[in-house]
């Protein structure tokens, strides 16, 4: 019965309710962001400015009682602007480390494709590791550490598209999209008084969040489901329109995401449904299509849907194993 009535893990449910107070019609994005957060991954938001990316991240940070840092990437931004820098203190006669925005809990990296690859990599390095190196010294990152990077798909001029290897670092890639008319009207109504973000209260402490992250790792993935994941990922590699398929890192990412999603759905085991649902978000930025496929109008999402439609869902234990 629990599967029918209680849809979300209770704590997460509160977080979502918080976000819903501030941002209208972005439930799915909010949910997926939490998936990435719980799976210790990061999110790449690809969308036009002004659709509420910042607001989403800020609300999330506030709900979780986390540091929120924002980096606006510009072409002249330096890596040290991201990581921090040591400054000579004439009073103490010592170099003092002034930490950069990366040393926050939740980091919004706005328009990441506007800065130089060098600066980009200073952020991306930290995303995969638990620490960063500043002037030869390892500086541990905070826990939890969650990056939400955004990139603007329209303005190609003066941008440095992220290389594939870097894209791989993001657990999920989301698109926000415009709100519906009704949602937008509601949005206007809400912003007329005090902005609701000021009323947001933390519902989860940092410690609790870390504990939840640890719990996510305990979510059970049955062999039938891992098999399903592997078959799915291999399917993208074999598709005609794909130049470069999803790497094994993609499989791991999918499984991690699925675990987090199952957890949010208040389950301690992963369903093929979870995998199916997450596959486009986890896999689409991890594959490169052939020029022909692009020309014919294929998209990574389309190819994933195609592979999924050909893949049998495991409904029986594999007796032969």
């Amino acid at each position: 019965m629990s599967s029918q009535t209680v849809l979300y893990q209770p704590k997460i449910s509160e977080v979502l309710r918080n976000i819903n107070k501030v941002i209208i019609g972005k439930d799915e994005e909010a949910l997926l962001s939490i998936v990435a957060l719980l799976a210790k991954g990061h999110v790449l938001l690809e969308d036009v400015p002004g659709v509420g990316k910042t607001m989403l991240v800020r609300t999330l940070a506030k709900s979780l009682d986390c540091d929120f840092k924002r980096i606006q990437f510009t072409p002249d931004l330096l890596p040290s602007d991201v990581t921090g820098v040591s400054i000579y203190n004439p009073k103490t006669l010592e170099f003092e480390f002034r930490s950069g925005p990366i040393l926050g809990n939740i980091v919004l990296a706005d328009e990441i494709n506007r800065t130089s690859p060098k600066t980009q990599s200073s952020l991306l390095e930290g995303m995969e590791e638990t620490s960063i190196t500043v002037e030869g010294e390892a500086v541990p990152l905070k826990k939890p550490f969650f990056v939400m990077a955004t990139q603007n798909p329209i303005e190609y001029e003066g941008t440095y598209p992220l290389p594939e290897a870097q894209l791989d670092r993001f657990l999920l890639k989301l698109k926000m999209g415009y709100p519906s008319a009704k949602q937008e009207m509601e949005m206007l109504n809400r912003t007329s008084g005090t902005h609701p973000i000021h009323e947001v209260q933390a519902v989860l402490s940092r410690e609790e969040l870390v504990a939840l992250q640890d719990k996510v790792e305990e979510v059970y993935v049955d062999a039938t489901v891992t098999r399903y994941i592997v078959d799915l990922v291999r399917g993208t590699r074999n598709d005609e329109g794909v130049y470069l398929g999803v790497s094994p890192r993609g499989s791991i990412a999918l499984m991690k995401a699925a675990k987090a999603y199952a957890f949010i759905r208040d389950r301690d085991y992963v369903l093929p449904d979870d995998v199916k649902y997450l596959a486009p978000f986890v896999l689409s930025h991890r594959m490169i299509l052939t020029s022909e496929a692009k020309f014919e109008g294929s998209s990574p999402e389309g190819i994933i849907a195609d592979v999924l439609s050909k893949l049998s869902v495991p409904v029986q234990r594999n007796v032969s194993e």
Partner: protein
Amino acid sequence: MNLTSDRHQSFYQITIYLCGFLLFMEWLMPLDVIGEFNNVSIFYIYAAFCFFISFIQMNWMISVPLKLIGLLFILDGLFIGERICSGGWFTIVYDQILYNIQVIQSQQWWDMTPMFRSLLFLILLWLMSYLLFYWFIIAKRMLVFVVLTIIYVTVVDTFTVYDGKWAIIRTFILAMVSLGLAHFYKEMEKESISVKSLRVTYRWVVPLVSMVILSSVLGFASPKLTPQWPDPVPYLTSANPGAGSGDGPGNGPVQKVGYGENDSRLGGGFIQDDTPVFRAMSQDEQYWRVESKDTYTGKGWEDTLEEETSEVTSRDLEFSTFTDDVETEERTSFLDFTGEANFNKLVYPYGVDAISRFSQDEFSENLSFQLHDNTGEIDTFESGDPVQLEEYVVDYNMPSFEYSQLREADEEDPEEIVEQYTQLPDNLPNRVVNLGSQIIEGEDNRYDQAKAVEAYFAANDFEYETEDVEVPEGNEDYVDQFLFETQLGYCDNFSTSMVVLLRSQDIPARWVKGFTGGELTQETASVEDQNLNVYEVTSGNAHSWVEVYFPEVGWVPFEPTQGFANNADFYTEVEQSDDGETSTDEDGETEDTEEDNSENPNQAQQQEEAESDEAAAGAGDDNNWTPLWITSALLIFLAAILFFVRHRLMAAYLRRQIRKKPGRDTFERAYIFLLKVFEKRKMKRHANQTLRDFANQVDARYQSSDMRQLTYHYERMLYRNEQGSEQMSKVTELWENLIKKALS
């Protein structure tokens, strides 16, 4: 409480299963009457054995070998003389298998050996025991089988000589009991009532029993319509063209003219069959006698006298139906049996004396003749096995009966003759006796009395008919029906009636079977300086007639059948021609003019009559397997139905399993089966569809949440690796609901 309900459960199962078994027995019972089964009881026993084994639900590793051993044991006892598993035994089995495989390959179905056919039949019994167990106990569905049984009994009753009157009553009672019980227990299960007290049971059992009794009695006692269509038996044809030529025992459902042995139930129409039986080369046309019968049962003829047999030699057959006082003439006939027929009795003319071979050789030393002293049946054996003589020469003394001798014969019959040959059934209607005395009124001697009876039929518009001939039903008497109701019939009707009419007046008479003279062919044969006519005798010439006993003379043949002439020779001595007949030589057939006239009229009719004889006698042996084929066909039909309800059966099986040992494996099977059933009901889960997705789809259709709930449990088991659900009873309930919906 559990114990009580268990006891009730097993009581229920035993009762239901017993009903099923008894119903199945109704399928086998007709075989006894209409089939060539000498050992039907063995089949009963084997069926019971199989049913028992199925019921106690042994592991198949034990039950299969047990049934197999039983099967081999029966086949061994019936067909194989050798010690089981000895070298010879294997040789026989090997030969049988080899032969039958060839037969099957060449599709010569009729050539299968009895052993092989029995094997197939036993396997069928085996399968049925298995199927019925599932049907009755597991699926608790017996309506179809009950209906089939009723249909089967009615069909067999309608199309064969089997009398299904009691069978249908038995079937009805069994059906009521089993269906009532099944319904009772289904209701209990549905309402989850446990049978706690006997009082509750009584409340059910008493109405059930009274309903069964009431409706049986009502049904039995209430008036019923007479048959709405003519008896279809005559219109059925035999599947085998060779039918009727043989001497096979038993009475097939399809009557075809020919010589048969079983005359216990006469009547019914028959069809023509011109299969040649033998060719006779003789001077004149004459009747060929085979045997007589002594006891009239009201339905037909039986041979109830003690079998007195004696070995006779070919040179001296020592069988005479008349005394030495009768004039005879030495004659010789040649018989050739090389046709298709298989007839291991001697066919002989009146006055047979000796037989020999065409060539001068002696018969083989191994050949022996066994004479049944009472009936005159002579069986031929070679080294103990029945054998058919392909050709032989009969030397005989053709009798000529002198009228005055017959008329003046004294009427003091020996006691044993009176005892044996004036027998009549106790329930012979009085009007037959009255008619007998009316007919012979005014005739002062036995010969004229017999002639009066013989002539009665022609004088009273009795008609010769082969197709639309009634079979006496219930208590009706065969002769009574013919004399007073139908007045239509063939030789059996005429001859039996004449015997009965005579016996009713204490004149010893008996019923004789054989062949008429056959058809004169264009050929002539010159044997030993004699020019002989060649007659072809076919199955159609099988015939029955009457012999009347005259002290000092012996048995004199009479021919009451319309359109047939008595071939026996009668003459009047010139000096004694007291009735003014002109008289004459030995061949003077003056008195028999009627008969003579009818001798020519139509050969066809004669053949027909012959047929009739056979019809009465029963079909040839080839027909004897027909009931088996019908049974097989019906059983196959049954199997087909089982195939169509296999999902229901499987559902019932899984329901049982899931209750018996709830767990991951059974649940998985049950769930996957449910998916399969949904697929059959046009709700296919696509391979790429997740269970949850599909469950939503199903629930949307049925507007419930059962499938989602069930799927939730299944997912936990499958994707969470749970060994079983704690809420197995709930799961079971959900599954049962769904499967019910899916199957409905």
